């Protein structure tokens, strides 16, 4: 009995506003979100960074889309290098009082002006291509778990290819994410800041070579005034590698602003 009371007291709620991946849940209908993300890589060999302005739309309870632009100094001067459209459709929701299970399908189309120096495919800035996949998210009162499975195909990039450059073709991606609500312990009003912590495992496998890597990505998150979100995360390469991959040992800083009921 004492144990049950103790457990009830230290119960923390799960969070699914993942920093490096998307949950199966959608943003609210008729809302718009604006994000600005900065990613920094230290072993390019020097330090380089990418800025990603992003607009998100909640069309209805099941369909949402993101539009992104990519700017970086990875090829010299800071410049616009491409853009991406991402859409997500939720096709399953099993909601109970203290748990839910949701499943969504997603698709992405990206362009990038960058030459391909690696076989790794990153459709958020480095490659032109398309991707499709599935997301499953389970909220179990105090734990929010999410799994993503994706398959990406890079478009041919003859014009910008230099002889001997790696030719990325296909890439399998998978991730497992978890999140906890740390603060507040007791909700009183919408002005209270929320503090969340995340731990994500991000992996990729090149089906042609069998090469893989797995990153461990911890992150912290603040939610202010129930509409502004600040993310801070870092991804460490835990195992495996892919020659010349960009997103190895990368930090991510993001601010997100939400506007509810603005779409007609």
């Amino acid at each position, binding site marked *: 009995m004492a144990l049950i009371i103790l457990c009830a007291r230290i119960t923390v*709620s799960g*969070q699914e506003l993942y920093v490096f991946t998307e949950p199966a849940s959608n943003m609210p209908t008729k809302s718009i979100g604006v994000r600005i993300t900065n990613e920094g890589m230290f072993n390019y060999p020097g330090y380089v960074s990418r800025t990603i302005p992003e607009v998100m739309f909640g069309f209805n*309870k099941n369909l949402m889309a993101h539009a992104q632009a990519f700017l970086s100094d990875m090829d010299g001067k800071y410049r616009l290098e491409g853009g991406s459209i991402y859409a997500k459709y939720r096709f399953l929701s099993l*909601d109970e009082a203290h748990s839910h299970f949701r499943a969504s399908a997603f698709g992405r189309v990206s362009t990038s002006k960058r030459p391909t120096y690696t076989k790794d495919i990153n459709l958020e800035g480095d490659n032109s291509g398309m991707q499709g996949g599935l997301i499953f998210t389970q909220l179990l009162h105090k734990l929010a778990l999410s799994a993503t499975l994706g398959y990406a195909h890079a478009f041919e990039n003859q014009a910008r290819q230099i002889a001997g450059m790696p030719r990325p073709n296909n890439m399998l991606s998978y991730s497992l994410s978890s999140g906890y609500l740390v603060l507040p312990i007791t909700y009183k009003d919408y002005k209270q800041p*929320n503090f969340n912590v995340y731990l994500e495992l991000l992996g990729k496998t090149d089906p042609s070579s069998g090469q893989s890597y797995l990153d461990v990505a911890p992150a912290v998150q603040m939610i202010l005034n*129930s509409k502004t*979100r600040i993310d801070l995360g870092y991804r460490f390469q835990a195992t495996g590698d892919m020659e010349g991959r960009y997103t190895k040992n990368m930090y991510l800083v993001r601010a997100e602003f*939400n506007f509810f009921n603005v779409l007609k």
Partner: protein
Amino acid sequence: MLLFAVNVSAQKITSADLQVTGLTCSMCSNATQKSLETLGFISSVKPDLNKNIFVLTFKKDADINLDLVRKKVQDAGFSVGGLTASFSFNQLKVDEKGQAIVDGNVYRFVNAKNKTLNGTVKASVVDKNFISGSAFKKQATTANSDAYASGTGLINGKKTRIYHLSIS
């Protein structure tokens, strides 16, 4: 004419406690609150963020549509876990099937029949998507209403929304 006027002002829903499931952060609750506030017949939405309950107060003499309340919660990305409304009834006759018609709204009570309801009555909507999926399945096995599964039935030859209520 006089009778009609009395009916309109005397039979209404004054407030409701709305339990929303799946809310894990204040941003989710805020989105739900903002979504509910777009309904013209709601005068105020007071959240209990700890319990994920929204206390809705309705405008006087407004047409209250509980299905729209449910839809607004779903639009925000969540589900209704329970909705208990305060009805104000004026000598409402519940027939032998548990059915009563108030200003064109058809109610079927799962736990009342052959009685007259008067004054404030608190009742929960037990229709699909107003309670959890598992609670609905459980209720469906005991509900003796042919309209329970769909929430609609023929009333005077017309397909009509039938709300199933459980008096608390």
